[in-house]
């Protein structure tokens, strides 16, 4: 009896502030404006070509940004973990992007990337370009708009991923790596056969957190490009629920958010499965 009493506050809290709104959203997504049960909201979404664009854009951003972020963050974490002179100062500097809220990041980059923004001024000051050859960062095609988002997102979240990986690295004792060096391993072999396998739980945590939040990217895109220029899933949720101003679209927004929730969970489960089965493969080949 006592354990149940102890967890009761948490259960009550979650029911009121989380479970109830979630259930409500799910229920409302299956009703139309007149309160009649229907799947028309979902049908609307599945018939809308923008949804498929949003889906593929999101997938593209997730795959590339998470990969790039992981590689760079892991590199940085390994570097800082060597405790070279000035590494703590470097760590401090590397964490600055993390301390900025997304809105500030968006404002900073959109003012920087504008045709008359600070990035072009900077390049001109140093003579890399002249007035006639200013780079139109924000005017590019779909690929370059997406690349820009990936770069900015990476800039913001690399510190976050790096901190998690660094904490994991510091949890692995120096001595297991030193043993690797004594028993014949090169730096790369030690990394591949000792450090990475031992860091796997941390890597999994970092990857799942990053995949989830990469699927939910939207604010930075809206701040740079406005709505509907580079559709992504959550941006469409916000657009429908909040911006279009009709109850019909609000319900579409709810249905979309239910779909996003399903996609996020599926991605997380898929990642766990894939990384788990990968482990088994390694074991068999030993």
């Amino acid at each position, binding site marked *: 009896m006592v354990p149940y009493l102890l967890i009761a506050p948490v259960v009550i809290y979650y029911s009121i502030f989380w479970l109830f709104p979630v259930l409500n959203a799910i229920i409302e997504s299956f009703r139309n404006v007149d309160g009649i049960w229907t799947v028309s909201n979902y049908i609307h979404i599945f018939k809308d070509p923008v949804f498929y664009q949003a889906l593929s854009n999101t997938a593209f951003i997730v795959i590339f940004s998470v990969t790039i972020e992981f590689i760079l963050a892991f590199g940085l974490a390994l570097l800082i973990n060597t405790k070279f002179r000035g590494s703590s100062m470097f760590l401090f500097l590397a964490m600055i992007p993390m301390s900025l809220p997304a809105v500030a990041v968006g404002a900073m980059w959109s003012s920087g990337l504008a045709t008359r923004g600070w990035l072009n001024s900077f390049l001109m000051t140093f003579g890399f370009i002249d007035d006639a050859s200013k780079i139109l960062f924000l005017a590019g095609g779909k690929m370059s708009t997406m690349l820009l988002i990936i770069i900015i997102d990476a800039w913001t979240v690399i510190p976050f991923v790096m901190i998690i990986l660094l904490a994991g690295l510091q949890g692995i004792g120096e001595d*297991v790596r030193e*043993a690797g*060096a004594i*028993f*014949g391993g090169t730096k790369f072999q030690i990394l591949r056969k000792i450090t990475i*396998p*031992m860091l796997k739980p941390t890597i999994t945590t970092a990857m799942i957190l990053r995949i989830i939040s990469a699927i939910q990217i939207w604010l930075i895109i809206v701040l740079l490009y406005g709505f509907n220029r580079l559709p992504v899933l959550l941006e469409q949720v916000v657009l429908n629920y909040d911006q279009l101003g009709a109850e019909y679209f609000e319900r579409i927004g709810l249905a979309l958010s239910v779909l996003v929730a399903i996609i996020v969970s599926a991605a997380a489960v898929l990642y766990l499965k894939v990384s788990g089965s990968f482990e088994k493969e390694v074991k068999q080949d030993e």
Partner: protein
Amino acid sequence: MATLELIDIAKRFTKKVWGVKKMDLKVEDKEFIVLLGPSGCGKTTTMRMVAGLEEVTRGTILLDGKDITDIPPRDRGISMVFQNYAIWPHMTVYENIAFSLKLKKMSAAEIKERVEETAAMVKIGELLKRLPGQLSGGQQQRVALARALAVRPKLFLMDEPLSNLDAKLRVTMRTELKAIHQQTNATSIFVTHDQSEAMSMADRIVIMKDGEIVQIGTPDDVYFRSANMFVAGFIGTPPSNFFNVECEYTKENISLKHSHFTLEIDSMKFQELGKYRGKEIVLGVRPEDLLIVPESKAVFTAEVLVVEPQGSHQVVAINLKEIIVKMVVSAETKVKPGDKIGLGFNIKRIHFFDSKTENRIVFKGGV
């Protein structure tokens, strides 16, 4: 099989902190050397420099005459057992032992044979499929040992390998390690802060203090001919007793005056004490060289403070106001706290130390 030479090596960590101040040592082929000293004296730092895990600040390391000072650990032909094992938790026991062999590109069949042979030598043949997390501390220790032996190293380093084991297992492992050494004949350096471990295992003991060598010698050397008061007070359970005595000459004898006793010794046998005439010196006496004698023959009498039975012998502590003196007596001796006993010295085995330098005063005629 190899010889190792450390020539004037030193390690400075920061401006003020020296891990090792100066170290000169030659380890012979097949020798089992023990580095012994109190915590913080630089034993681990020395090992790490030999292994290549720590750069030297000064000096040269020669293995088989070849300068290895600047080559990476993996190319040195050295293996090591770490104090907290440092076995890899994500690999099975088999994989742990096979790691270095795989990197050497040995064939699978050779690796299997070598792993099984080594595992059998340290008695973990049945555990090869387990992960380290499923093993006891003692078994993990054996895995670390097998991993280090499997490479057939030129030089085998062990940094306090037994200090995490319980007392009983520690004593068993001493014997096993020594037997393994006799079997493999690998030149070995073993680090410990436990003097009885050092005495029981070493061909030669290197005693260190504050980053420097204080004495190098066989267990008998360091016990019976301790180079200074630090060694005499560090080696032995219990260690040496020290008495500050005044060195005075009578006609044919030297009389050593202590606040509790006066000991007369033959001035012919102890000629070298001449230069200490009228000065204070330190008399060092091993606990077993203090003897219980009838009061008529006693140099002095004292009251027993405590008696510690050890089974094979007893340790008797005597209170001499400013110091507690410990002596070892046979198990049959009947003494109890409060007893007044007569005490004498085994003159053949007493030592003298210069009270300023604390170094041993050496006599030509032996002793």
